[in-house]
Structures are given as C-alpha cells and as structure tokens.
C-alpha cells in the first residue's frame, strides 16, 4: 500500500513538473508571436512560478498597457531572482515607470543600494545573516584585542566594510521578505484618514505608486508612502 502511495506521489510530481515546463515553453512561443494575452494566460496557469515566469508575465502586462500589473510582476520576480534577473527586473521597472511618467532618477546612495542587492541576489538571506554575524563578531574581537599594528587597523577596516555591506543586504532582503508592498492600480486614488468614505481626504496616490500596506480592515487598507499614511480601498491596490 505504501509503495502504491509513493508511486502515485512521484507520478503526480513528475507530471506537474512536465506540464509546467511545457506551459512555460508554449507561453514563450506565444509571446514571441506577439500573442501577449494568450501568453499571459499560459504563464498564469502555471502552478509554480519562478523569477523567469514573473519577468515574462511583467512583459506581457507591459505590452497590454497594464503598467501597474507589470510592476507587480517585476517586483515578484525579485523574490528569488539571481543577479541577472534582479538587474533585468530593475531595468524593466524603470522602463514601466518612465512609461507612466513616474520615474525619478535615483540618488547615488540608492543606486549603490540597488547595485549591492543585485550583486548578492543569488545569496539567500540565511547565508547573508551568517556572513554578517561572522564579520560582526570578528570586528568586535579585533576591537577588543586591538594592538598598535597596521595590519590590525586594516583588518578592522575590512571587517567594518563587510559588516556595512552585509548589513545593507540583510536589511534589503529582510524588507523584501517582510514588507507588504502594493502598487496603486487606479488613477488618483484618494487617501482617507480612516477606513470609510466618511473620513476626510488627506491626499491622493497616483497610478503606479508603490506603497507599503500596514493594516487591512474589511475593504480598506492602511498604507504608507514615506511619511504619508492613510486608508485606500483594497480594490485600488495590487499587492506584490
């Protein structure tokens, strides 16, 4: 009996894998033929989607002029992307934002942050945490046993740089894992001070705006964009 169950599980796993792979290849062909809607439907029908699939879904949405959906797909692609996919996703996001006139040239620090995240995209958060802790403990050990020798200072400097870079990566990956991000999918969505239309309007979010979801109550989401916090209807947002 046990053998039969294992056999059926194996068969279903292999079949699902083969089906998904075939769907992926078929969707790629549809995309190349310019049949974006059908390609999108095929990609969406896949039961497991990796970074490559999300990137392709984003492209389909882009050509269907659904830019908010494209942004969501590109952001989902970042979750388990490798370095190249990460760089591609960021470049495509830039293109979409330019298309909807919402692109803001990043500062030098933001560019460096994105560069570091891209370069370390293939490394898991767990490994980065270990690397950070290792560098952190070595740095402390060196500081506590410091001697007036040049190589000590160089080692301390190297460890500090490593701590800084791995800290930035851990923070970035943590944000990607923990933050609930959403994209505004409607034009000029009013931001209210409470979860009901009776509350007064604080401002508005433009189409394609990235916001952080803090809380959800029924049909309303409490969202944040830097210091601006307010409530918007759930159907105006596309969660990443």
């Amino acid at each position, binding site marked *: 009996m046990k053998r039969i169950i294992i056999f059926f599980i194996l068969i279903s796993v292999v079949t699902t894998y083969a089906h998904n792979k075939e769907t992926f290849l078929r969707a790629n062909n549809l995309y190349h033929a310019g049949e974006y809607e059908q390609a999108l439907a095929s990609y969406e029908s896949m039961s497991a989607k990796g*970074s490559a699939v999300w990137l392709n879904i984003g492209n389909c949405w882009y050509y269907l*002029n659904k830019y908010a959906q494209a942004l969501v797909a590109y952001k989902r692609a970042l979750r388990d992307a490798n370095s*190249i996919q990460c760089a591609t996703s960021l470049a495509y996001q830039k293109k979409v934002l330019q298309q909807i006139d919402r692109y803001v040239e990043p500062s030098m620090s933001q560019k460096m942050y994105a560069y570091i995240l891209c370069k370390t995209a293939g490394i898991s958060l767990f490994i980065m945490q270990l690397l950070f802790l290792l560098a952190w403990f070595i740095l402390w050990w060196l500081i506590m046993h410091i001697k007036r020798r040049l190589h000590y200072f160089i080692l301390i400097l190297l460890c500090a740089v490593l701590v800084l870079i791995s800290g930035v990566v851990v923070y970035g990956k943590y944000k990607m894992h923990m933050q609930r991000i959403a994209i505004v999918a409607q034009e000029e969505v009013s931001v209210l001070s409470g979860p009901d239309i009776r509350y007064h309007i604080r401002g508005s979010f433009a189409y394609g705006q990235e916001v952080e979801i803090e809380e959800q109550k029924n049909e309303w989401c409490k969202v944040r964009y830097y210091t601006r916090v307010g409530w918007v209807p759930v159907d105006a947002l596309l969660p990443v």
Partner: protein
Amino acid sequence: MGKNGGNIIIALLLCMVQHAWADIVLRAQTMRGQQIDAVSIGEPFVIEISVQDMAVNTLPKLYADSALVIDRQEQRMHITINGQSTNRFRYIVHMNAIGKHTLGPAVIEDNGTTINSNTVVIEVDEKSLEDTQKKEAFARFEVDKERVVVNEQINCMLTFYYGHDTIEPKFVEEPRFNNAKVIGTVQDYTTGSEKINGSRYYYIRWQWQLYPKVSGTLIIPARRVEYDVEMPQGYGPFSFFRRAERKRIYSNALQIEVMPLPPHTEDICAVGHFKHIYAEINPTVAKEGEAMVLTLAFEGSGDLEALAMPKLEGMPDALRYYDSKNYIEASNYDGMQIKKFEYVVQGRQAGIWEIPAQTYIYFDVQSGAYKTVHTTPLGITILANPAQQVAPSPTIALEQGQIEQELIDDVLPIDTSDAWYPVHARSPLPWWLFIMLILLPWIYLSIVLIRVIIARHYAQRAHIIRAHAAFKTAKDALYKAQQAHNTAHVYEIVIQLFADRCMVPQAQITQNFIIQQLRKGGLSAHSIAQWDDFFAHISMAKFDKINRTQNTIFGDVYKWLILLEEII
C-alpha cells in the same frame, strides 16, 4: 616660427572663443534683488551688470539718459561656478525725472572688441501721497474662466502683492483638490511690480493649470500666504542679526461652475483646443524586420499629460507595432504644447503598405462641440529578404542601426533560459535570534564595564566599608579563633580592628597610636593602664607563646571590644 606661431594662433583663437562665449546682461532690481520695471522718483534701486566668461579689466560703460543718477558703485564681485566665471557690477542709482526711461546698454571694451548688453525700460512715476497709506501686503487669486466643462483647462493665478522691499514671502498654500487635477508648482513664479489704486506694489505670481474631473461647483478656498517682514535694526549687542516678523494673509476664494460634457457615443481622446493632429513615419522604406518610428502628434491646449497612448486602428497584418514612448514638447503657439506618441513599426512582409488615417474625436472648448480629426494615411515600402538586398549606404545603415538599437531598447526580451520554477532558499534565522546575536558583543561589553565600575567603586570606598564593618569583622574572626583555640590570632585581630576603624595601614598601628586613640576616645588613665596590661598579654600570646587560659584572653577581648565600640 612654427611652434611660436602655433601658440599665437591658439591664443588668438582662445580670445575669439572667449568673446564668442562672453555675455553681458543688464538688470534693474530692488535693493533686495527683485527684478523691477517701475520705480518712484528719487527711489533708490540697483542696476546690476553681469559679465559672463570674460576677463574684465575695465569697468563697463553704462549709457542712459540724464534722468539716471548714480549714487554709488558697489564692490565688484567675481564668482566662478562649474568653470563659468561671472563678474558682477552693482550700481545704486535713482531717477530724477518722471516718464519712461531706457537704461543701457552697458558696454565693455576689451582688446578692441566691444560687447553691448541689453537695455531695460523703466517707468518712473511720482511718489504717490497714498504711498504711506497703502497696504503692507495682500494676495489675489484669479482664474481665466468661471464656467467650464469637465476636464477643460482653467488657468489660475495667485499673486502676492507687497508694498515694501523688506517683505519676503515664505510659504504659499498650493491649490490641491480631490475632484480636480492641478499642474504647476510654487517653484515656478514670476516677479514684477504693478500699480494698483495709484500705489505701486511689487508682486510674486504663481500659476497653475486646473482640470476639474467632475461636474458641479468647484470651490477654490482662500489660499494662505505667509511672509516675513524685516524688523528695523536696533542698537543692542545683537543688533547685527536681522530680525523678521512672520505674518499670514489669505487670498480671496473663488467658485467655478463645472458643466458635464454634452452626450456622445464615441470615445473621446481629449478635452481642449487642438491646432494640429498629425502622423509621420521615418524612414518610409525599410527591410523586413527593420524598425520604423511612427509619430503621432497632438498640438494644442488641454490636459496633454492625461492623453493616453492611442491604439493604431486598421494596421495591415503585414505590419507589427509596439508602443515606444511619449513626451511633451513646447509649441510655437502661445499657451499650447505638443504631445508626441512614438510607435516602433516593423514590416513582416515585403510590399507597399499603407498605415490608414487615424481618427480622433475631442471636445473643442472654443466651439463647445465635439470635433473629429483625421491624420493623413502614410505609405511605406517594405523590402524583401534583407540578405539578398544590396548593402545600404553608410548613412542609411547608421540610421537603421540607431533605430534597431532603439528597438532593442524598446522590446522587452523575455527570460527563456533561467529556471521557471521557484528556487526555495533555506529559511532565515528568526529575527529575535538574529538581533540577540548582534547584541551579544554589546551585552558582553556591558557586563565587563559594569564589573569594572563596581570594582572601582568598591576600591574607592573599601576603607570606609571596612571601618563600618570593623567590629563585626573582628567579632567574627574572634569567634573563629576561639573555636580553633588560637589565642595567637587575637593580637592580629586587635591590630586589624584599629587599622580598619582608624582607616590607616596595619603597619602604622603601634602601641602609642592605640593609646592615642583611646585617649581621644576619652578613656581614663586607669583604663589605659589596664589596656596596656591586656595588650601585653595578647602580644605575649602571639610572640612568646605564654600559656594563659583561653577563656581569660577571649573573655578580656570581648570586654574590650564592647568598650572600644563606644569610644573609637
């Protein structure tokens, strides 16, 4: 001659280029830098001459009619920003005749070259008697229309008028509405001066474009403007600091009637007034698979930002197109702009094809009716199989290369090589654990620091603590000695007691020292004699090993301890 001649030519060229770049600008402005075109008679103002990218060895000559009186010339300033040098000459002047006067040009002569500046016309009026009565500042909000349709452009203007140069606006409340789109920022403004009710005011003017999104009454509430008024300088020790008083005023409020668009069945692309809507394609001849750029342009006024990328209708199957980019350009017509949409068109099949006329309907705000416009059809030629074609000329190849590059940039390649399945990474350390591990060195350091602090504290107060606990320590030690039948230890206990109690090292405790302490404590001579006797006994018990019953020694010590507790 060869090398020197070359150097001379380069120097001459540099001089020519320098003069070619040189620029001289004349401005009339208030003492605080506000540009003006009118002054009162006798009122001091500033003429500033800026000379860019030119070494100035002589002062510029300022030509003006006789009404101009130069009161003084301020120090010349030389500023260099990003390699561009600017020389500024400031003159404090006033006008002594009413009417319109032309100031300038300012002329600079250098190495036989003469460069003239612009001229400025300034209106001089009589100082009004009302000047002393005029308002300090006020704000006025104006619109160009009070009755519009939905999405029609309304030009709004907020003007802050102020009567004195010592006033400086600090904050302007921008118009923001939920039911209307606003274009424009407070960073864009114009300045000048204007005569109102016989009094001249300086002004700062901000302009916005408003597009109401829903019909009904659009109320523009009063806008707030905050400004600083510079206080007169005092004579106190800190009088060199400028002081200013912050004040607040509100503009008038306005009401605009927004009407709905007349009923229509077709989709409309915009509301506004359009001069031209046209299409063009470049190049008109291309090979199969090569890219051509089709541009659709809408020239007119209205909310061009909201104009969405139109779909190309009726495109032949042999052509394929992709949306590329859109942008807004300035127009030659006043108050108008051009919005251009670019599409990348690719031929899939050789032949002569036509991109059909595109039809757009918009609501024309000038005529108050819907208008339908058509672009002209565009003919293009697609050449078959590029591999068999004759190599194109370098110019065409370059152009096509550029377009192909653009196509590569525009068409988003999909990811076909990477794994389509999700890659499951090992789950990270729980965050509480990670934070704890980060804090571990801090916790260790904190413990070490606390220990050091406590040790230092005890080290500083050890003698006091020992002094307080001296009798208790002595009694405890005595009890232990008694239990161990160790009479020799009594001497040490007594010496330690005095050392602790008097807070001195053991080495300083002598018989004389002890007697001195006992005398200080008010012990009688008889008792001191008894102490001598007792001390001799315990000394002997320590050093001479004289037998004496333990009970006697320990009994004596306890008695003396009780007595000593009262006196030292």
